[in-house]
């Protein structure tokens, strides 16, 4: 009852000062709207950039590195242990880059709870022949559906379809750079020469573009079977096993575990892209600090207006106190006042922020790196709206608290005597 009365008094005082109240609320609205638009946009960008690099990179990559032989026969004899041994002529055995027992390893990893999926891959250097020129490049032999599931390759296929690789035999999707240099279009047939000197004709079914010249000038994709055939290898031949985990943070530990377990080499995404997180963090920090600054400025706006209101309403405060309203009642009235401004401004801010985000998400944005993205990326996440309104309420509460305290301490005798 009392609370309702105080709330009504606050509303009435507010209505009498509607213009200033609207200005104060507009400050909050603006602060929240900018906060939401900014954070949604920035995290949208972050997500897009994540897609660009992180999502294209396996969390763990298993491979076989060609290494010097560690166990030189001369050291096997205990006699020679504490001596300097000059004979270490055993060269690395030509095991190639093949991962042995690859099928077993893939099956074992697939059963791991922590893993989303496993994609086998063959990478092999080739020459693309055009006229008398040879262009050095790489063919990635992939398992099309799994590769698509883990790395959404189709986002970067500008012409043709990734699925065709699995359907049309001896087909290849080549990087935009290679295609431009060789002046080939989908449907053309190109000739490739492997490192072993074997030649083959492959049908171009599509063009792929990552927007990074280095990659677009060298990379091409074909199915596992096509590459195995090209190299004359059996169906179990694989050079890379790519793993995606449910939790990216587990990558370094899991990589080490697999390396030990399967006796292969393993790298993890953190080691490969350590600088990447930093960029994301900097962007989020900037957008949060700008948003918070705007809200604090809005808070000062409310503080000012309430202070002014209190000076103007001294008589009313004195009369309320003289007729039996306590200091606490008066304080509540002014806190309600600021909270009404905060909530009204805040809700409008949420709506405006959503509107701004919508507008941003419709602004055209063409990038070579992501041919499938046509407008600016915006991350519509409920959590930013919750953070925005919570912070606005806290700011307005604090902004209202000090003037409200002052109002509660007004001595009616001084005001009444002062007339």
């Amino acid at each position: 009852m009392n609370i309702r009365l105080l709330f009504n008094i606050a509303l009435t005082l507010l209505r009498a000062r509607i213009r200033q109240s609207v200005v104060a609320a507009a400050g909050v609205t603006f602060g929240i709207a900018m906060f939401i638009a900014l954070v949604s946009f920035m995290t949208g960008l972050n997500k897009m950039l994540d897609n660009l690099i992180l999502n294209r990179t396996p969390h763990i990559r298993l491979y076989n590195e060609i290494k010097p032989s560690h166990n030189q026969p001369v050291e096997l004899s205990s006699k020679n242990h504490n001596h300097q041994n000059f004979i270490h002529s055993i060269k690395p055995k030509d095991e190639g880059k093949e991962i042995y027992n690859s099928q077993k390893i893939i099956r074992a990893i697939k059963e791991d709870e922590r893993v989303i999926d496993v994609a086998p891959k063959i990478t092999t250097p080739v020459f693309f022949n055009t006229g008398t020129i040879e262009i050095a490049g790489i063919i990635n032999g992939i398992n099309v559906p799994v590769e698509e599931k883990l790395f959404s390759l189709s986002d970067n296929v500008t012409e043709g379809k990734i699925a065709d690789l699995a359907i049309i035999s001896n087909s290849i999707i080549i990087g935009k750079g290679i295609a431009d240099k060789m002046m080939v279009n989908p449907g053309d047939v190109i000739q490739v020469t492997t490192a072993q000197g074997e030649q083959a004709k492959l049908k171009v079914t599509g063009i792929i573009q990552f927007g990074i010249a280095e990659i677009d000038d060298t990379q091409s994709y074909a199915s596992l079977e096509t590459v195995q055939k090209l190299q004359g290898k059996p169906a179990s031949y694989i050079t890379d096993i790519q793993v995606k985990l449910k939790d990216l943070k587990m990558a370094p530990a899991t990589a080490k575990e697999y390396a030990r377990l399967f006796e292969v080499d393993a790298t993890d995404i953190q080691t490969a892209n350590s600088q990447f997180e930093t960029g994301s963090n900097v962007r989020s920090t900037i957008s949060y600090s700008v948003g918070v600054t705007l809200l604090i400025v809005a808070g000062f706006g409310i503080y000012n207006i309430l202070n002014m209101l209190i000076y103007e309403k001294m008589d009313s405060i004195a009369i309320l106190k003289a007729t039996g309203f306590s200091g606490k009642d008066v304080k509540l009235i002014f806190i309600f006042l600021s909270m009404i401004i905060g909530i009204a401004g805040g809700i409008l801010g949420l709506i405006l922020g959503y509107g701004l985000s919508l507008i941003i998400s419709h602004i055209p944005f063409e990038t070579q790196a992501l041919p499938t993205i046509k407008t600016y990326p915006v991350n519509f996440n409920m959590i930013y709206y919750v953070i925005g309104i919570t912070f606005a309420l806290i700011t307005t509460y604090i902004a209202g608290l000090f003037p409200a305290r002052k109002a509660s301490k007004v001595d009616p005798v001084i005001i009444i005597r002062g007339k």
Partner: protein
Amino acid sequence: MSEKVLEAIAINKYFFDPVKFQVLSDITFSIEKGTFVSIVGKSGCGKSTLLYILSTMDTDYEGQLFIDNQSLYNKTNAELSQVRNEKIGFVFQFHYLIEEFNVLRNVMLPGMKLGKFSEQEIEHRAIRHLETLGIQDQALKHPNQLSGGQKQRVAIARALINDPLIIMGDEPTGNLDKKNSDLVFDIFKELCQEKKQTLLVVTHDPDFSQRTDRIIEMQDGKILV
């Protein structure tokens, strides 16, 4: 013997700014229920200061004060607010209505604060008081649309809303012309006679004080006997 509504015992008050000086010395008196008392004295003799103490708004004094036989000593500010709300009706010289509220709401506010009756009941009572004071047709106007005399009658209606033990006024007619002063005086007199309402009114209008039941005369912070 009739019951005491208000009793002041040995009240002293000092101001320290700019120099220490005693505004009230040894004020001792009491007011019986149903009497119409006026306080008179030269300007600056301490009448307003005394009234602010009696109305519990000023707590910075020495001595003892009883309202409704309850000592106000050691009461918290919230408790004093409660006492003011429930037991004291106040009428100031300068009307002091809240501009943002219409006449009816102004009258109702202390009643709503007390919360003893429902809103409809308070509204009903407010309208009845406005009727008694002859301003029921102004109920929905805002204070700035009223004349001085009308405003003062609204203030009286507000003072009456919680059936206070005592109504206090600090020169309630000081700002009014003769006709309106008489009107306000008549209202007070009527309240006293018909409703046994206790009244304590500061005035420097001898005409006004002459017609009250009892005159307390002050000089230099003391009550003259």
